[in-house]
């Protein structure tokens, strides 16, 4: 009996030592791999030091939008028309209290849209005109990373940050994650506040988050997004593939100076503004 206990204690001691020592061993044996990784990182840093950080060439379609604020300043009714078209297309409820507000495409002053840009001594037209704001359909969307149910996700085929309302559990992590405030929560049943139904699109229910979907359902039917269609012919909103060098939107981006909302965050917004 005594002998057995002694043996047991020995084995237990050796096992415990091995258990504690194993992670250290693994770390030691993988130090080579780590070293090479470190080297690669240094290489990148060196490249970055010489200019812009090196990025892999973008692939596939990435839909984006250029909003020409000069044209909207000239004719503010364009933006009103675009917002109305969006509301009609997506059964968006209209609440009186701002807490319940549901926003897909909305208006906001320059200082709120571009808080990082200087708003000291702004040009008069920029100071006085409201900007068109919508989901930026980021190339690296923080909302998608935050969503625990993958209710919001990036569509691989066109880069749209889409939502599956069926799957949303209303946790609002995405709203906290979105740096642009582009997401709204249905605090109450939206149905009574929808002015007019579009029978081709559902409404939402209480407890679900929603946002602009770049009119994915209209694009599938070969139509332009509702807001783009509402401004047709004016060039106030240009929509297209950012990765296609010959698209109208790229021609415009090559020609004009544009700004993105808080680009420093690294979310790579797909909505550009000409101020």
């Amino acid at each position, binding site marked *: 009996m005594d002998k057995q206990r002694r043996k047991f204690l020995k084995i237990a001691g050796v096992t415990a030592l091995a258990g504690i020592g194993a992670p250290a061993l693994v770390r030691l044996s993988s130090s080579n791999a780590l070293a090479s990784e470190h080297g690669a990182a240094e290489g990148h840093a060196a490249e970055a030091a010489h200019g812009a950080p090196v990025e892999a060439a973008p692939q596939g379609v990435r839909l984006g939008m250029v909003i020409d604020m000069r044209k909207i300043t000239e004719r503010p009714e364009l933006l009103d028309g675009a917002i109305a078209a969006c509301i009609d297309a997506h*059964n968006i409820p209209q609440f009186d209290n701002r807490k319940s507000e549901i926003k897909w495409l909305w208006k906001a002053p320059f200082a709120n849209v571009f808080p990082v840009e200087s708003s000291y001594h702004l040009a008069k037209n920029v100071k006085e005109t409201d900007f068109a704001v919508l989901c930026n359909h980021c190339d690296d969307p923080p909302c998608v990373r935050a969503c625990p149910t993958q209710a919001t*996700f990036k*569509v691989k*085929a*066109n880069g749209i940050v*889409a939502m*599956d*309302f*069926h799957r949303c559990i209303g946790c609002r992590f995405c709203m906290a994650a979105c740096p642009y405030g582009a997401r709204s929560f249905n605090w109450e049943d939206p149905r009574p506040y*929808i*002015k*007019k*139904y579009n*029978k*081709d*699109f*559902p*409404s*939402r*229910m209480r407890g*679900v988050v929603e946002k602009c979907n770049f009119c994915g359902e209209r694009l*599938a039917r070969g139509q332009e997004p509702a807001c783009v269609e509402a401004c047709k012919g004016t060039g106030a909103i240009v929509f297209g593939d950012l990765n296609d060098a010959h698209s109208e939107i790229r021609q415009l981006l090559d020609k004009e100076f544009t700004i993105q909302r808080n680009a420093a965050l690294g979310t790579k917004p797909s909505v550009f503004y000409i101020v």
Partner: protein
Amino acid sequence: MYNKGTIIPGLIIFVLFVTFPIWFNGLKAATVPKPELPPGGEKKCVESVEYMRANHMQLLNEWRDNVLRDGNRTVVTVEGKDYRKGLQQACMQCHSNKEKFCDSCHTYAAVKPYCWDCHLSPKEAVSKEETH
């Protein structure tokens, strides 16, 4: 037997209480609902009747994932007519009366699908139509 006077009436009351749903309905099962066939006279659905009866919910889920996740919005063609995948876009085009079609069975089977929390039934869709 001890306490015969209380046990036997007690048992009778218990049995009557437990079988309440059976005798209250006159020993008959509720009539099996007959969902309304499409008022437009369409005879063929996207799948066979048996398949739809048993699996329409799976089909709807498949369509949902096709459309929203995979971007596969190919139209379904039945007898030369094109239907876009979707509850509002395909099903309700023919089965235009939700109350007489969907609800009749769902109420009988005591299931409460949450489709209609968001999707608009044809009746609701026209309740707030464009007036101008």
